[in-house]
């Protein structure tokens, strides 16, 4: 425990002066306070209720290097590999913005790019957004607040709607030697009536141990729409810890899609708070993994005001000795009458050793509300499997098809078509490409 504290203290002392905004007193203070907070609390342990099933001792033990490695020649090739069609792109390699690999359209009323660049260009504006930063919820968030060196910056003037989805690609490419850590801080500020769709996409090599410790802060103004997606495709030995926090003003919409396929251990905390009436949110998630992967999703929807609507739908497919944790907390405050909240988490286990801990957590303090939740853990239906095999489809394909059918309820709701197509390839097993005939049926609406 204290080893990690000493390590990051020493790193901070070394690097404080070179971090972005080192000359800005407010930011220096914010970073120093975050480091203090980390020093007090350390990283979470199994004794923390919220981390009961996710053991981060392996992160604690390893002295991660916080100084970003230089981008190497592989970056361009990797970007080409992960690029998605029909979108703007912001690329970060080892935590640093790489303009040459990025592709951004200029749009009046929208500032999109690097947070560090924005800080240098318009420190007052960044301060206005970041000063309201809540105290870090746990040690990882504190480390991020202390060490962040760059991230995505989206600042939309009232009524500005960005049509093309934004693909933010975070690539870790270690240069050998120490295990690197990156601390992306992403900030989305959508003023009244503004709209944007963004995808945070985290990737890295399978043969390196590294840590991504990311934080995303989203402010949706009155009637704004922010559609946030994250695709966690980190390398097999990586650690990935992320917090996404949204604050929604009256009548705004915040959608979140959390997709997790990679990393040895990953955790995504996703929270939104309704700060005005008539807000809506949809939280979707899909985690798919085998081996000894560990996925943790902790979500929080805070219905603090009346007439809010929330829909939450998470699914998981686990093979091998993979393990998943889902905790979906929904709070309906005393004032939040006419709240409509629905939550479900369904899991498909493909092996006997795979394991899920799923927990819906509804805290309802208002009386005129509609809330429901459900959680299931099941296996492939042997009768369905036999039916497919009896039609000549081999066992492996039958399983792959049934896994796709299970995941389809999430995949189909992904509006961003290039991502939806990419997901088919990330699901386990191969299915025959029946010449454009989609395996997925149109959803039954009833």
């Amino acid at each position, binding site marked *: 425990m204290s080893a990690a504290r000493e390590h990051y203290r020493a790193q901070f002392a070394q690097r404080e002066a070179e971090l972005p905004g080192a000359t800005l007193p407010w930011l220096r203070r914010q970073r120093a306070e975050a480091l203090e907070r980390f020093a007090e609390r350390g990283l979470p342990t199994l004794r923390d209720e919220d981390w009961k099933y996710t053991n981060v001792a392996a992160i604690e033990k390893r002295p991660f290097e916080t100084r970003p490695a230089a981008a190497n020649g592989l970056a361009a090739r990797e970007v080409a590999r992960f690029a998605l069609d029909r979108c703007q792109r912001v690329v970060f390699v080892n935590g640093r913005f790489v303009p040459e690999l990025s592709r951004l359209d200029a749009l009046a009323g929208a500032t999109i790019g690097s947070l560090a660049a924005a800080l240098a260009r318009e420190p007052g504006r960044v301060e206005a957004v970041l000063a309201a930063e809540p105290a870090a919820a746990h040690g990882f968030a504190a480390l991020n607040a202390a060490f962040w060196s760059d991230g995505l910056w989206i600042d939309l003037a009232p009524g500005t709607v960005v049509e093309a989805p934004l693909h933010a690609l975070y690539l870790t490419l270690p240069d050998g030697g120490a295990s690197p850590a990156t601390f992306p801080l992403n900030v989305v500020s959508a003023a009244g009536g503004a709209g944007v769709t963004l995808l945070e996409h985290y990737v890295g090599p399978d043969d390196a141990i590294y840590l991504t410790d990311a934080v995303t802060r989203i402010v949706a103004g009155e009637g704004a729409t922010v559609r946030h997606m994250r695709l966690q495709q980190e390398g097999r030995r990586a650690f990935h810890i992320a917090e996404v926090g949204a604050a929604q003003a009256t009548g705004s919409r915040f959608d979140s899609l959390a997709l997790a396929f990679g990393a040895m251990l990953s955790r995504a905390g996703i929270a939104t708070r309704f700060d005005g009436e008539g807000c809506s949110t949809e939280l979707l998630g899909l985690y798919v993994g085998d081996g000894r992967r560990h996925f943790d999703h902790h979500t929080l929807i805070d219905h603090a005001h009346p007439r809010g609507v929330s829909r939450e739908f998470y699914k998981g497919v686990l093979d091998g000795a993979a393990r998943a944790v889902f905790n979906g907390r929904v709070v309906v405050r005393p004032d939040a009458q006419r709240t409509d909240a629905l939550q479900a988490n369904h899991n498909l286990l493909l092996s006997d050793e795979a394991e899920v801990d799923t927990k819906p957590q509804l805290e309802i303090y208002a009386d005129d509300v509609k809330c429901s939740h459900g959680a299931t853990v099941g296996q492939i239906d*042997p*009768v*369905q499997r*036999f*039916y*497919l*095999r*009896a*039609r*000549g*489809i*081999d*066992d492996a*394909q*039958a399983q792959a*098809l*049934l896994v*796709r*059918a*299970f995941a*389809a*309820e999430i995949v189909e709701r992904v509006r961003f078509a290039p991502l939806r197509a990419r997901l088919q390839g990330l699901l386990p097993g191969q*299915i*025959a490409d*029946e*010449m*454009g*005939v*989609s*395996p*997925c*049926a*149109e959803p*039954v609406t*009833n």
Partner: protein
Amino acid sequence: MLEIRNLHVSVEGKPILRGIDLDLRAGEVHAIMGPNGSGKSTLAHVLAGRDGYVVTDGEVRYRGQDLLALAPEERAHEGVFLAFQYPVEIPGVANVYLLKAALNALRKHRGEAELDAMDFLALVRDKLGLMEMDEALLYRAVNQGFSGGEKKRNEILQMAVLEPRLAILDETDSGLDIDALKVVANGVNALRNPERAIVLVTHYQRLLDHIVPDRVHVLAQGRIARSGGPELARELEARGYGWIEAQAGEGGREAAPEAGEAGR
């Protein structure tokens, strides 16, 4: 085509089939009748290769090979088709995808090229017409939300597309209205030819008015208690199963008595 010898099958340790003998030649249609719980579906499932049905004795040869040694998909590739008594709903898998994947798996096994999208659709439309089915059902999830009759038609649609050598229809007529029964019967009759054999599991003479069987067998207490020609079905319709069950009880381990024409 199909030779079943002394087939004994247990499910969860409980003997269900207790010495079935049956011969089915190419070109023939056999009906299997018998009281509820006598083992008709068990026989059908064992032939299709369902897990959990333990063959404790006997053998099944299909076109000269040991059928029981094949995986369910291999049996399908060899031309065995089971129309399920209870067609399975598969939410999320499009009916048309299943049809196409099934047909292409079969063609691949036979060393034939996959059908292209145009030819496939032409074929399926043709069969849909035969089954008087709405094309919209193709794009829905397999059997999900289908009415009982639609599910049964869908089984026969699959059969019509896959053109099996040996089709086993487990109570495909149950739950069909009078018009649908004719449609399904037409679908089956369209498939009837000297190269194919069909097993019809049914409770009703009505289906056999439309598809006249070569042989009728009565399954009782896990054995073929009686075999005969089409007139046996009419006799059953009139007399019920009581008399056969009583005989089966007395008959013990002896060969099934023949009714009507001489046994084979």
